């Protein structure tokens, strides 16, 4: 079927309009001169100017980026280990419990995870701050990473690893030289997922953040609770722009890699 029927065209158009119009309106009103978000008062970039000088937001943004970078990196390392254990680990004591603990945080409401972690931190007397947010985000994100990586490991041709071992590689070398390059795209997308989850998280951070460390979502939430604020529109526009550029770049890179892989396969067949 090369052409869309009118029904499909209408449903896609309406669906995408529903998905994108709210965000487009958000972006347009970030350039609004008026303080009232619903009245158009002419084009202006003043809210961006105010945002740049808003110390509290900048500080929160810095904490958020720091937490996201640290937690997503640790989560990627431990999550990849967990995926490897799940797919290649064979049998060990408590394997069912292990896989249960990997999947449970994915479906657990965040309010419960947040509450339980906070009670733990208070129980062991750990002061709430950057460290506690990092611990919370790492735990949550490693489960996502391990699901992404293990779906790649399952489809991975194990004989490649065995060939490397036969040719004299140690197990570590076989992992480093064969397995890791092949699962690398999954590891990278796992890291990106962990990073965005951490940037985005409000609930876990609210439970585990202390007065010394506030993240951007907490700041945004307390600002918009009181109503619409043009500075938040400006901030949202910047975040939407970064994500859009990131996603488009990533999809172009994967597309190019797929083309190259296809060429390699064709060349290999010719040989």
């Amino acid at each position, binding site marked *: 079927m090369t052409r869309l029927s009118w029904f499909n065209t209408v449903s896609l158009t309406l669906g995408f309009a529903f998905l994108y119009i709210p965000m487009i309106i958000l972006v347009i009103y970030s350039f609004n001169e008026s303080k009232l978000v619903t009245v158009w008062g002419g084009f202006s970039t003043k809210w961006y100017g105010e945002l740049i000088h808003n110390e509290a937001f900048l500080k929160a943004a810095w904490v958020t980026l720091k937490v996201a970078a640290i937690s997503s990196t640790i989560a990627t390392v431990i999550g990849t280990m967990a995926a490897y254990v799940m797919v290649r680990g064979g049998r060990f004591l408590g394997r069912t419990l*292990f896989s249960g603990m990997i999947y449970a945080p994915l479906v657990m409401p965040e*309010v419960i995870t947040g509450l339980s972690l906070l009670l733990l931190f208070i129980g062991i007397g750990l002061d709430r701050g950057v460290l506690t947010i990092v611990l919370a985000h790492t735990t949550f994100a490693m489960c996502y990473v391990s699901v992404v990586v293990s779906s790649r490991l399952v489809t991975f041709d194990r004989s490649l690893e065995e060939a490397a071992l036969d040719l004299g590689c140690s197990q570590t070398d076989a992992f480093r030289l064969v397995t890791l390059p092949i699962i690398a795209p999954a590891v990278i997308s796992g890291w990106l997922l962990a990073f965005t989850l951490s940037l985005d998280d409000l609930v876990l951070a609210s439970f585990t953040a202390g007065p010394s460390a506030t993240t951007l979502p907490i700041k945004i939430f307390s600002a918009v609770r009181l109503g619409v604020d043009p500075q938040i529109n400006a901030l949202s526009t910047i975040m939407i722009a970064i994500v859009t550029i990131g996603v488009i770049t990533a999809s172009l890179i994967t597309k190019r890699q797929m083309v190259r892989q296809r060429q390699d396969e064709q060349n290999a067949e010719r040989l």
Partner: protein
Amino acid sequence: MRRVVLIAIPYLWLLALFLVPFAIVLKIALSDAAIARPPYIPQFDWASGIWAFLAQLDFENFVWLTEDDLYWKAYLSSLKIAAVSTAFTLLLGYPMAYGLARAPEEWRPTLIMLVILPFWTSFLIRVYAWMGILSNEGLLNQFLMTLGLIDSPFVILNTNTAVYIGIVYTYLPFMILPIYAALERLDGALIEAAEDLGCSRLQAFWLVTIPLSRAGIIAGCFLVFIPTLGEFVIPSLLGGSDTLMIGKVLWEEFFSNRDWPVASAVAVVLLLILIVPIVLFQRNQQKQQEAEQ
């Protein structure tokens, strides 16, 4: 030896930061509230042995949950909001997934990217976007009033309607993607066969397409239903004071009332309710995997 380390690190991490915290929640749910720091009296200590431990269990907080109307109403209302918004998401998501699966092949990667893109954008921002649209002097009301359709603004923000809109909007990609995956695999020859054998197009859709995309529909519904049940951000930004959702109740119980034992008991019951859909979802996924092999 290396294998032991590889297993031990993620295992211990999850034990310490997932299972142990949950055991603490359970313990505090069985304790008494107190005006103190921390605001509860431990009901038992682990050192006194298993029988002393069992004898000291106190289900008072759970009894309290059944006695106060607020809690069971909040659970019921969460279930209702989650179910209704899942149904609306399906109604909107299925035609979109169908359109995507029927779109020309060279467009599909771009269209799929457009579905996934909102998922990478901040959840909070997407909910916030609706606040400016739905408020009394918001764009939707302005638009309807300029058209002359209404004289006075509709009150939408801070009602359950706004909550439904917010949930459908933010969770739509979770519904579209699994259904699209199921529809894309569907063999077009089967529909042609049904039509050759005398089915109308609508009958073929109802008798062939829908049953063959069932696994995708079920997966999509659970992916929307399960997280919505414990949702906190959407009801607190878009909902009103009469919007009862259990995630919000738990939050207020903890942060405003500082009643940790009751907040913990609310969490335990919510988890018990969630076990049913989670198990059903897992079973659906397993069946699908077996079918693929």
